[in-house]
């Protein structure tokens, strides 16, 4: 079946071995939890395996034939991954997941602050050149939003606690959109950094970036983007965004677990002090001091995520082969189907935007009088895998006055039947719990 959006979903599905699995006494699996983690096509698994079976060796440390090949494979993977978002490879740091990338950014501030306190010489010897924009303290602020994933909130709480900076946030409207009416009072001259999600993992709402980036620029603050829900699902071109850094996780874009990407402007990478330190990120080491390699190596301490990088590059290749614009269209189509189906169910309420304006392919719902985990249980019993809970965005839930919700998220391998199974499962949950 080729959908209206030109995606041959049946062919795509055949690339993903897990999609033919059966669960719970032989129900066919309907996987609608890709916003948590995506499934892996065979080409990704093959690429990793081929690396281990033919090339595996220490990268950037060895001089023998395998080490050369492994280093080339790793750096070519970085190049391929950078291309996926229109970035330069030297601007792409390969990390464990988006959470680590956001911590790396937050630690740049707390480490810079601690090192600045140690004095100019000590700071320089520890790899921090003294850029005052990274030094926090009382009177400076960090800005996030109320709908952030914990990964883009807790690290900033920690940075604020360590440095004495104030944490402020953009609030949300009752429909789960960012409320920008107080933008200028929240992002001010005292703001060192604004870190914000590109798209909510709960409501699917896409962040109106332009005014936020403009305001951050106007006050001289860094602006970072948590693109976990954007890069896997739509074409992203870092050059056009105007942000200083952007990160995402490989496992949400059909890549292996254990790899994520931090893209950052060269100037920012050069200014940040080391994060994790050790082998491969140094130039020279004496007992009491070290000098450091240029980015991105400076931020990749220890033996790298070699096979994972190769797997992620294969995933980028695979997705680009299908076309990110086409994938976005496809998700949009499935989202429209889901919203239409849900509109027929009076007991089911969508959290966040109920139309297709500025929203991605995740749909979270509340079922009147039925707890999300009970809804999820009914769906699971029918083979439909969705996410239930607070989706790691507890403050958003609290603000919207909801405890937990049921989230379906769509990806390239989902089709209209999957959406129908989701909607039918919601109806079944209603009748199971309200009928009894």
């Amino acid at each position: 079946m080729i959908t209206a959006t030109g995606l041959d979903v049946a062919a795509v599905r055949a690339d993903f071995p897990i999609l033919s699995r059966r669960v719970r006494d032989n129900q066919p699996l309907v996987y609608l939890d890709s916003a948590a983690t995506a499934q892996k096509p065979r080409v990704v698994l093959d690429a990793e395996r081929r690396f281990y079976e033919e090339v595996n060796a220490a990268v950037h440390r060895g001089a023998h034939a395998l080490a050369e090949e492994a280093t080339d494979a790793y750096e070519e993977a970085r190049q391929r991954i950078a291309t996926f978002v229109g970035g330069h490879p030297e601007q792409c740091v390969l990390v464990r997941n988006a959470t680590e990338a956001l911590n790396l950014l937050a630690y740049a501030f707390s480490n810079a602050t601690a090192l600045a306190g140690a004095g100019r010489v000590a700071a320089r010897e520890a790899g921090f050149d003294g850029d005052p924009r990274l030094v926090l303290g009382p009177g400076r602020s960090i800005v996030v939003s109320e709908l952030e994933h914990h990964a883009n909130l807790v690290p900033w709480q920690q940075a604020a606690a360590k440095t004495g900076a104030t944490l402020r946030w953009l609030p949300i409207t009752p429909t789960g959109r960012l409320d920008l009416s107080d933008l200028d009072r929240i992002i001010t001259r005292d703001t060192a950094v604004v870190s914000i999600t590109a798209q909510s993992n709960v409501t699917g709402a896409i962040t109106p970036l332009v005014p936020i980036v403009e305001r951050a620029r106007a006050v001289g603050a860094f602006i970072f983007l948590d693109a976990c829900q954007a890069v896997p699902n739509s074409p992203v071109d870092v050059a056009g965004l105007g942000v200083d850094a952007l990160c995402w996780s490989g496992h949400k874009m059909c890549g292996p677990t254990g790899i994520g990407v931090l893209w950052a402007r060269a100037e920012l990478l050069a200014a940040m002090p080391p994060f994790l330190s050790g082998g491969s990120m140094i130039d020279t080491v004496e007992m009491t001091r070290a000098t450091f390699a240029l980015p991105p190596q400076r931020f990749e301490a220890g033996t790298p995520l070699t096979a994972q990088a190769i797997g992620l590059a294969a995933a980028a290749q695979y997705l680009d082969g299908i076309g990110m614009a086409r994938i976005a269209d496809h998700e949009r189509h499935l989202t429209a189907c889901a919203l239409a189906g849900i509109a027929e169910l009076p007991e089911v309420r969508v959290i966040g935007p109920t139309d297709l304006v500025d929203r991605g392919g995740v749909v979270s719902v509340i079922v009147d009088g039925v707890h999300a985990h009970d809804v999820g249980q009914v769906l699971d019993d029918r083979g439909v895998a969705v996410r239930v809970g607070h989706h790691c965005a507890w403050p958003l839930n609290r603000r919207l006055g909801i405890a937990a919700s049921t989230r379906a998220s769509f990806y390239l391998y989902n089709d209209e039947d999957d959406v129908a199974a989701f909607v039918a499962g919601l109806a079944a949950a209603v009748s199971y719990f309200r009928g009894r």
Partner: protein
Amino acid sequence: MRLDSLYQDVIMDHYRRRSGHGLREPFTAESCQVNPTCGDEIRLRVAVDGQGRIADVSYEAAGCAISQASASVLHDAVCGLPQSEAMIIESAFHALMQSRGTDAGDPEVLGDAVAFAGVSRYPARVKCALLPWMALKDALHRSEGISR
């Protein structure tokens, strides 16, 4: 069928008509427990009398059918019992929940709570059933601290 073995009638009945729901005075100690995966919270109070008997258990809780029913069953099971006997039930219930469907539970000890046997087959729901019991254990622990 799979669903019905999880949401047994006993569970659904307790879920609909929660025994002992609401927070009451007097109480000896109170415990708040939160289930980090869903964000649900229970606040549970015990009133222990001079003889070490549980005179009342009162609670307020947000949560799924399993956790709501579990609180209700708990109330009915332990009110009026000596603390030590309540803790025996708590242990048996904990063991049942960890059994991964391999244990049917002893109705002599557990009473209505055996209806939760099916929950143990769903690891993500075990915490739901345990939450009120964790609160009970904690509250009794605190009440001991107070009475000592």
